């Protein structure tokens, strides 16, 4: 049996953390380059949904900005799907395929593995979302009136940090799940599309429903981005973009801290209850 080459330099502390992050994000980004057909499926399927809702608005003779709302919302669905299926459920998949114990016995911290998954997923999904926005805008002739591009990009970035922090938090919860993981992830699709206002402004919700929905980072992120990118956006916004940005910063901090705390707790619980290697098909 061929022996592995010796490790030239043993890493620890922050360098180990960073190498683990990069190591786990690598297959996500490179995998997409190697299997380009994913790009087709991950953009084509959301585009079908986007087109469906666009034609509903066209049938109802809605103002043209609503078509843009659907295109931007449709692009954001890629992030939510990535959170559900490639973040939250990921540790469950790893358990099913037998990789999870390998993660646990490797020297890299689990938090870095989750962060690597998030980073890789974010990069890959941003590419897909960009393609959806470009295609949707061209196909349906969407007109943007961007008020402040730096603020728009900042809000997108903070919303993504909060969203992926939420994904890391739920990933640790999914560590304990078995067969029900798939169903729970599946269940969280349409209700979140509805609550986060992927296809309409949440200002149309009663205030307290919109406020509750704002706990999902995409809700405020989308609302703020629409306000900054469309002519009628400000009149249809829930809160001002500045306030929404502040709330998103708070959500990002809460979710990242919660992810770290929950991961430690759930990992210990999963070890104690022997759930790390179970595979109940």
């Amino acid at each position, binding site marked *: 049996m061929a022996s592995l080459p010796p490790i030239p330099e043993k890493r620890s502390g922050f360098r180990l953390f960073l190498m683990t992050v990069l190591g786990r994000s690598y297959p996500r980004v490179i995998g997409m380059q190697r299997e380009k057909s994913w790009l087709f499926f991950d953009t084509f399927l959301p585009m*079908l949904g986007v087109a*469906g809702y666009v034609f*509903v608005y066209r049938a*109802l*003779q809605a103002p043209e900005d*609503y078509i843009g709302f659907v295109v931007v919302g449709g692009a954001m669905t890629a992030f939510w799907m990535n959170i559900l299926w490639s973040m939250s459920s990921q540790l469950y998949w790893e358990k099913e395929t037998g990789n999870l114990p390998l993660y646990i016995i490797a020297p890299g911290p689990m938090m870095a593995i989750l962060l690597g998954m998030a980073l890789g997923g974010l990069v890959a999904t941003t590419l897909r979302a960009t393609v959806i926005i470009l295609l949707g805008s061209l196909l349906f002739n969407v007109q943007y009136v961007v008020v402040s591009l730096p603020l728009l990009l900042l809000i997108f970035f903070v919303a993504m940090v909060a969203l992926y922090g939420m994904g890391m938090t739920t990933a640790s919860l999914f560590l304990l799940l078995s067969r029900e993981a798939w*169903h729970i992830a599946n269940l969280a699709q*349409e209700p979140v599309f*509805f609550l986060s206002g992927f296809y309409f402004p949440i200002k149309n919700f009663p205030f307290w429903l919109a406020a509750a929905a704002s706990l999902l980072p995409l809700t405020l992120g989308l609302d703020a981005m629409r306000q900054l990118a469309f002519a009628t956006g400000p009149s249809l916004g829930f809160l001002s973009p500045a306030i929404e940005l502040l709330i998103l910063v708070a959500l990002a901090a809460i979710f990242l801290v919660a992810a770290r705390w929950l991961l430690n707790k759930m990992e210990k619980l999963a070890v104690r209850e022997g759930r790390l290697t179970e595979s109940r*098909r």
Partner: protein
Amino acid sequence: MNRSVPLRSLLTATWLGWKIESNWTDPLLFAIYSIVKPLAAAAILVVMYSIISQADFQSPVFAYLFIGNAFYQYVARVLTGVSWAIIDDREHYRTLKYIYTAPINIPIFLLGRGVAGFLTSSFAVIITMGMGMIFFKLPIDLKTVDWGLFLLALVLGIFMLAMLGLLLAGVSLRVAQHAGGIGEAVGGGLFLFSGAIFPISVLPAWLQPVGFVLPISYWLELIRRALLGPLALQYSTFPALSNVQLLGILIAMTAVWSVLSLWLFRVLEHSAREKGNIDLTTNY
């Protein structure tokens, strides 16, 4: 009891499909799970409609959209239920090779796996329609509904969807990668082209012919006509066609697609056996 092979295959697959679908949790959570998704999907359309129309729920446009969306749940669940059985049994449970060696009828076994999807989607359709009638006063009078036409169209439609699912199952047998995405892509495409939530005439002219060759377009129109009566004609994809003409087209299309699906399934299945795809696992 000595049952025939097709009947035994159907009953066993139905029972197995139901267990896979439902026994991961307790009945209450399963019931909630079965209705939350479709209700949320309906709620998206309701809010979109109410924003633009100032909540005019008595309009035939709303009835068109709501009923089409509610009954489209059958398309997603029955069609993909049949084809997903291939992915599930081959990749997840890794039992497809054993199923092929068992004394059963494979196409009927696969159709049986779709029955569970039919049962759960029926539950969701009833709840969705009930909510529509109670909260949005959908203009459906249960005393004037054409129940004969409704039941005939429903049975024909479910049969047609199951046979289309068999076609997809054949394709899934031959495809290793992305097999899971096939059902989703077809379901999404049919949603767009079949006039489920907007008339086909809203599509660009060059895309409309796609909708006209899909039996689902005629099926959804018949369901609306049976439930709404003359009101359905005020906002319709096929205003020039009578109920009898629509029924005739649906029967003819169901027959053609069924024969085509069964034939293609056999061809693809034979090819899958030749290529060694029956026990393929990719972890993809």
